[in-house]
């Protein structure tokens, strides 16, 4: 498995691939991933110019560990194949497919990526995939989509198009997104991949944004798509584990590793019954704590 498949992705920042001022150094804001957009942000007659700037940015700019995802144009457009070739040739980390509804969409993109990796001498399997779910059909078919490819690291809800399809609109309360959010997180977890929430577009309402992130954090999402660097510290703050949870997770990891050697399956940590099922969650807490710069322990 590509080791990057499970990397930390609390924040994925949308950037128009055609705007040098935006894509030159977004890493200073420390998002976990950036999403260089060739789709909606780029005008129809500027697609080739955007690809040109994307390719050179990927080749020339040191993004300092920030994951570089490229959003290609929809599979119903004449652009997506060339988008993939350009992104893969540039050395992107992942391709984001918009408007995904069927496992066949993933397979089609996977096939093009494979050809591009061969053509441009990129190691096979290096380029990952994520799928944006933007319709009612996509939500219903989520599990099939999630299981379509080994390259698929996650799915993301795209709330704007989804609510249109549902014949409603973004209310700011989250009520219109409840079903989709639940469905997607369940499907993603069933397929053991990651799940990301939609953007929050009202930049004047940072309190509303905070509440939104708190909700999706509790629901189990791995992260959120964002449209402005001001949103990053809020997401990272909410996803930063509390000290007591870090200490507990540390104990759980150490105890499980210790007890496993001794052949003990179930035991007590701080009065709670613990078994191997807690291991991944505790490890994830430690990883999050490390990424948030609050872990001082030795794990």
């Amino acid at each position, binding site marked *: 498995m590509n080791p990057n498949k499970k990397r930390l992705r609390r924040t994925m920042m949308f950037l128009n691939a055609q705007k040098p001022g935006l894509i*030159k*150094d977004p890493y*200073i*804001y420390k998002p976990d991933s950036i999403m260089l957009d060739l789709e909606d942000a780029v005008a129809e007659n500027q697609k080739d110019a955007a690809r040109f700037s994307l390719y050179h940015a990927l080749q020339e*700019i*040191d993004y300092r560990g920030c994951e570089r995802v490229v959003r290609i144009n929809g599979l119903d457009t004449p652009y997506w194949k060339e988008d993939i070739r350009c992104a893969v040739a540039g050395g992107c980390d992942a391709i984001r497919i918009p408007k995904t509804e069927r496992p066949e969409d993933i397979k089609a993109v996977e096939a093009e990526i494979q050809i591009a990796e061969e053509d441009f001498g990129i190691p096979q399997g290096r380029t990952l995939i994520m799928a944006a779910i933007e319709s009612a059909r996509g939500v219903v078919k989520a599990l099939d989509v999630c299981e379509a490819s080994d390259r698929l690291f996650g799915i993301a809800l795209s709330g704007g198009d989804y609510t249109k399809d549902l014949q409603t609109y973004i209310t700011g309360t989250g009520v219109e997104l409840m079903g989709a959010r639940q469905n997607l997180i369940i499907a993603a977890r069933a397929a053991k991949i990651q799940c990301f929430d939609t953007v929050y577009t009202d*930049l004047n309402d940072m309190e509303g944004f905070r509440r939104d992130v708190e909700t999706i954090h509790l629901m189990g999402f791995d992260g959120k798509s964002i449209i*402005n*660097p*001001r949103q*990053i510290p809020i997401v990272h703050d909410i996803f930063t584990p509390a000290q007591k949870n870090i200490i507990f997770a540390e104990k759980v990891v150490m105890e499980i590793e210790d007890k496993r050697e001794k052949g003990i399956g179930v035991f007590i940590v701080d009065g709670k019954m613990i078994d191997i099922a807690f291991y991944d969650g505790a490890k994830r807490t430690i990883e999050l704590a490390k990424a948030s710069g609050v872990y001082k322990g030795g794990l």
Partner: protein
Amino acid sequence: MINAVGRDIPEEILKITGKEPFMGIHHFDGSVYKKDGPYTKCVINSEGSKMVDSIHDCLVKCGIRDGMTLGFHHHFREGDYVVNMVMEEIHNMGIKDITICASSLGKAHDKLVEYIEDGTITGIQSSGVRGKIGRAISEGKLKGLAIMRSHGGRVRAIETGEVRIDIAFIGAPTCDDYGNCRGIGGKSDCGVLSYSMVDADYADKVVAITDCLVPFPNFPAHISMTKVDYVVVVDEIGNPEKIATGAAKPTTDMRKLMMADYCTEFVVNTPYFKDGFSYQTGVGGASIASTISLAKIMKERNVRMRFGVGGLTKPMCDLLENGQVDALLDTQDFDLDAVESVINPKHFRISAGEYADPFNKGAVVNKLDFVILAALEVDVNFNCNVVVGSDGMITGAQGGHPDTAAGAKCTIVITPLLQGRIPAVCTDVTTVTTPGESIDVVITDYGIAINPNRQDLIQCMKDVDLPFKTIEDLRDIAYSITGKPEKVQFDDKVVGIIESRDGTVMDVVRKIKEFQFTGE
């Protein structure tokens, strides 16, 4: 001759100007001199009037002639009409060889380029110049040398007699028929008249120009009748919309907010951040944002500021309104909130001399704990450039930059590492305007560098969670992104000098040369 910041000052320039090369910011500390004084006309007859019908008549009464030096202030900023109005009349009268000694000049004065080209104006002395005048000087069109001096340096130059102002023109938002001027109460309010005070004290003739004549006495006067020879009323002295704009909305640019947060975090971790500290900041987005975030922490920690200095803007005046600062000391107002705050009894008007003159018995800048500044370029020796663009063109002003930097206990410069595609942290600044010995910290979006001369600050930051780097690291990061910039190509001709606040030569500005590719 190589000066104390390593700049080669041509002997010929030292000879022409009679100046010495810069020898360090404290070189003249404790030296003694006798101040210059103006000619003063005794007005004993109570029948006389100071009112004059037109600028033309006023110029005639003042004895305008070729070769004179005229003083102007820049409190009207980009809304100023006074300089152009006076110079147009002088041009129409066929007078030549005028030197303008202004506290600053901007794009509002683009029209002066015609007068530079036809020899009406042959000398410019200013804090700096923006717009077309800057270009004209950089292209070698000014016959004499342009002299760029700080706000404190201008007062020093006038008080020592290095510059003798023949006629000073004071644009006054309100004035009475006997010359009492105020910065408020009219239709073109600028709040204070601080930069003009030295002109009023030292010019041989002083003319008040107003568009709002009020009954005598216009008290409390910001410039007293005892110093004013003539009063002229015109339709408009400036464009109010450009003199004092509405307060700028606090920035939402994350890069600036990030630098502001770094700045605040730095400030609060120094030993100077305690009850009774003093503070000055500029008008850039990051500076304003840092004042706002500092105010929050002051409230949380119950720390009061004793005094704030400016160049004032709304966030500083808010501190006064909220009772977080005891006093504001004001030399200039940048927005309407600051202008309106002038009537607050704890908002004190000070002269440019009180603010920053290095050659008096002690100025406000010497009492500053913190000053937050910007810069076009900073080099690995912490020298700053705030006047000449990285393209070699004169495009900015010293303002109080070197004055406050020299005086404050902790001088912080905030700049994004890259200004567009140009590294702001570099090996050698294009032109030195503020010497590195007075800069303590450089804050960028990529990290923070403390001047190695300030081991005390380095020590107190050792457990602080901020992205500290060396200044060389910052330069290397910048160059790794942009490549090493090629040097700007200059002609040999010196078109201007950057005068240190003590009157020595900090650097020279050469004529720009059209770029030619030199690489292979």
